[in-house]
């Protein structure tokens, strides 16, 4: 039950894009059509779901003072995390290419782009600062990825429609995308009052 709570919380209430502004660059750059946004969103769920548990294991058993080495190596955290993410993205790319060419073709260039998506590294850093357990970090990774997916598909759908409306020329494109994201953030804030833990307790 706890895992479901964390999943819901990270997907809706603490949405990576709309509450923390993570993964904004690719969110704004790749949200011009729903189809590509969909592919990128799937890839992000995938990579977040995989790197989060791996980084948890590294942080817990290798870097922390109570780990296998009994040395406090936390200053290496950033370098190791980003190396894991870069190599995992590479690995995922190769595995997907070998076993599912259809999915590989669908994701295309978006897989390598994910290395520099702030949401991935940000997720791992949040996991450390919130002291999640292994299972919680898996739920957080999948939930965060799902939230990111929802946000990018939603903005892509809005941007496809808004192309036909009469916006002042200087505001077209990037400007209106920023303002739309702000409005979506406010809309998502209405979910903030929901507390999954309290709901579960009330049952």
């Amino acid at each position, binding site marked *: 039950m706890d895992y479901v709570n964390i999943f819901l919380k990270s997907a809706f209430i603490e949405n990576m894009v709309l509450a923390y502004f993570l993964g904004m*660059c690719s969110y704004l750059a790749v949200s011009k059509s729903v189809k590509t946004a969909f592919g990128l969103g799937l890839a992000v769920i995938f990579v977040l779901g995989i790197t989060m548990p791996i980084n948890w294991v590294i942080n817990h058993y290798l870097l922390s003072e109570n780990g296998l080495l009994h040395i406090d190596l936390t200053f290496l*955290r*950033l370098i190791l995390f980003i190396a894991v993410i*870069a190599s995992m993205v590479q690995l995922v790319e190769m595995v997907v290419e070998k076993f599912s060419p259809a999915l590989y073709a669908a994701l295309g260039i978006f897989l390598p782009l994910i290395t520099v998506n702030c949401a991935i590294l940000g997720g791992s*850093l949040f996991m450390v600062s919130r002291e999640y357990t292994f299972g919680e970090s898996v739920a957080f990774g999948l939930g965060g990825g799902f939230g990111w997916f929802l946000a990018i598909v939603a903005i892509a759908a809005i941007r496809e429609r808004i192309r036909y409306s009469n916006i002042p020329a200087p505001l077209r494109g990037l400007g209106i995308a*920023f303002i739309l*994201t*702000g409005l979506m953030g*406010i809309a998502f804030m209405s979910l903030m009052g929901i507390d999954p833990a309290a709901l579960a307790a009330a049952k």
Partner: protein
Amino acid sequence: MAETNVAQVEKKEPLFGKKERKLLVDPLNDNNPITVQVLGICSALAVTSLVYPSLVMAISVIFVTAFSSLFTSLLRHYIPKSVRMIAQLIIIASLVTVVELSLKALNYPVYKQLSVYIGLIITNCIVMGRLEAFAMANKPWRSFLDGIGNGLGYGAILLIVGFMRELFGKGTLFAGSPLEWKIVGPSADYLINTAGTGYMNNNLMVLPAAAMFVIGVIIWIQRTYNKKLIDVS
């Protein structure tokens, strides 16, 4: 004779000529990393609810962009193309670790406030983007200037957004720093409202979404005066 020699040498390769100046000034308006190149928005928005953390963030990013550009440019002939991403990431990650640890030692409250966003400078697209687009193909001194220029362009937007959000949202400026300034006297509770002056805090500006609105409006104003940036598609 010696003087003319020096002049000639300087003419050939000026240390700070027109091109170098352009590298520094261009990212402030025509080629701004945030409003034009759409890079580095991720870590920019979340820290701008107050001016002081924005300033610290801007300085950290300028440091990282400048020195990662310099080091990448120095190493550019030795980095194999197939592993250049990882090599660049290691350079950036080391610099960010330096920034993170120094900030932790020098100013712990701000370090706490910025939390994961300092670490996220690594994946700040400005840094990677400039390394790929500029430092891998240019000489160290120019890359260094390009890094500083882009860091400044990023920092300028950050400070404008931070200034607007803090002033209208909380009625203060530079809260938490020695320069702290408030709309009313020091006794008022500026977190709730600034009673006595008739000014009420605009709570919308404190929300993260306000950063998006402010940047949207900055883009609007910038493109009104700079017509060539208008999106025609």
